[in-house]
């Protein structure tokens, strides 16, 4: 059908938007979002994660949490800049993948680093406050993940739902602080700066849109 239209030289309606609305897009994005997980799982099984696989898993899962957070927060500014409004249908999925990787990051820390020893975890948090910062970000993610289905939006009402989901900005701030603090031991802030800059642009775009003269 599309090919036939193209052959007749008919104007393509919607362009990127109509492509984004195709039924295959969501499953494709879903599958792509699982690739990092699949790659890490393969690495754990095949033992290709280097000399310290536990550390590699914990850190990579943290990296992917941050990347999905950036992707999720990029949807709205991208829609405004490009007019690709159909991107909106991917936002919930990306948000839930942020939660998915955050959960695995926390699980990997609690399991691989701490052996689920509550006393050890309590001692570790007292020593390394940045863990508490990361944990706070995860706790804030919970209500957002829990209210990510349509019935929850209806039950809360759009305004209250939106107010609740603005917690994502606090989560972004905590996530950057967590990463910054963790890297402070080696004064190695290059990557932290990249994520901070991306998130600052994405949040700044929202402020600009709201308060522009």
């Amino acid at each position, binding site marked *: 059908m599309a090919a036939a239209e193209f052959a007749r030289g008919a104007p393509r309606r919607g362009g990127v938007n109509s492509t984004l609305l195709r039924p295959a897009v969501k499953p494709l994005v879903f599958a792509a979002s699982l690739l990092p997980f699949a790659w890490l799982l393969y690495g*754990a*099984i*095949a*033992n290709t994660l*280097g*000399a*310290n*696989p*536990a550390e590699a*898993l914990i850190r990579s899962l943290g990296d992917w949490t941050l990347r999905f957070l950036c992707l999720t927060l990029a949807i709205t500014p991208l829609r405004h800049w490009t007019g690709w409004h159909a991107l909106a249908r991917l936002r919930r999925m990306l948000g839930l993948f942020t939660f998915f990787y955050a959960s695995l990051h926390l699980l990997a820390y609690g*399991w*691989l680093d701490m*052996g689920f*020893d509550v006393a*050890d975890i309590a*001692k*570790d948090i007292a*020593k*390394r406050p940045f863990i508490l910062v990361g944990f706070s970000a995860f706790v804030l993610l919970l209500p957002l993940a829990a209210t990510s289905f349509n019935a929850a939006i209806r039950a809360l009402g759009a305004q209250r739902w939106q107010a609740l989901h603005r917690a994502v900005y606090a989560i972004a701030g905590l996530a950057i602080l967590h990463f910054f603090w963790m890297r402070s*031991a*080696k*004064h*190695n802030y290059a990557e932290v700066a990249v994520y901070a800059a991306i998130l600052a642009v994405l949040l700044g775009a929202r402020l600009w849109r709201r308060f522009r003269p």
Partner: protein
Amino acid sequence: MLYSKDRAQGFIHPIASEITPREVYEQRRDFLKTLAAGSAGVALAGWAARDAHAQSVARPNKLAALPGARSAVAGAVTMDKLTSYADITSYNNFYEFGTDKADPARNAGKLVTRPWTVAIEGEVKKPQTIGIEELLKLAPMEERIYRLRCVEGWSMVIPWVGYSLSELIKRVEPTGNAKYVEFHTLADPKQMPYVRSSVLDWPYVEGLRMDEAMHPLTLLAFGLYGEVLPNQNGAPMRLMVPWKYGFKSAKSIVKIRFVEQQPKTAWVKAAQQEYGFYSNVNPKVDHPRWSQATERRIGEDGLFQKKRPTQMFNGYEAQVGQLYAGLDLVKNY
């Protein structure tokens, strides 16, 4: 059970140390060494010595050979399972080449280790500059299998090749004023891309008290796994002090200086509250930001295995404990 290297390679066998309690196998080894010492006759002693030192070190055939005879120094050959050559040479802290553990293996290729000289300075009767070829011939090479405990909470077991630092110190004849020894790592931004970074004050300086430097376990290492040191491990010559956290053992040394005052070492300058001059491995004295009670043995402890307890002086208390008699190890961390 996805995580065991041995399983991945198709050999399903338990690690001996997992089955036999430490006390028991250490007693057995002591017994075997006693036999080896001659009490049970020459033939039996030969057999027993082989058994006590059963672990063989196979060359990876990557670099030039540097053989060493098994060391006779007390405590110099641990029976712990060796960490693989691949892990030892790909997971490194050598900040001159980058702060990520994978950076040194990637970036150390540019380091030129020939010609190489080491300046001996300060409170010595015979200050001199010694070439690496001469240093290699200065004393017989020994193979020593040491545990390495990183301050970050991981450990390895590494078969080094070298000789006691005391061999070199005796030749240069320190004066009575020499109370400490300083070790300076090369700091050449042309060969070491991260020497420009602000993480540490370059060059990397480490130091030991004179009695620590003279201890027979304090090793001047030139090789590992029967071959010369790979650049990322501190070629062509580095220090290895097995009872201290790894950062005390300076790599790619270009200067050894004998001094009267306690040296201002790189990590003490960078974070005095976190790193002390002594930095002896001590499970009871935590780093301000993490526990030192346990460690992860690289390549051996599986993904889902709990970390193992860290030993006092990294297990070398019998050999070095007396150096610190009467010293408050909490204050002198």
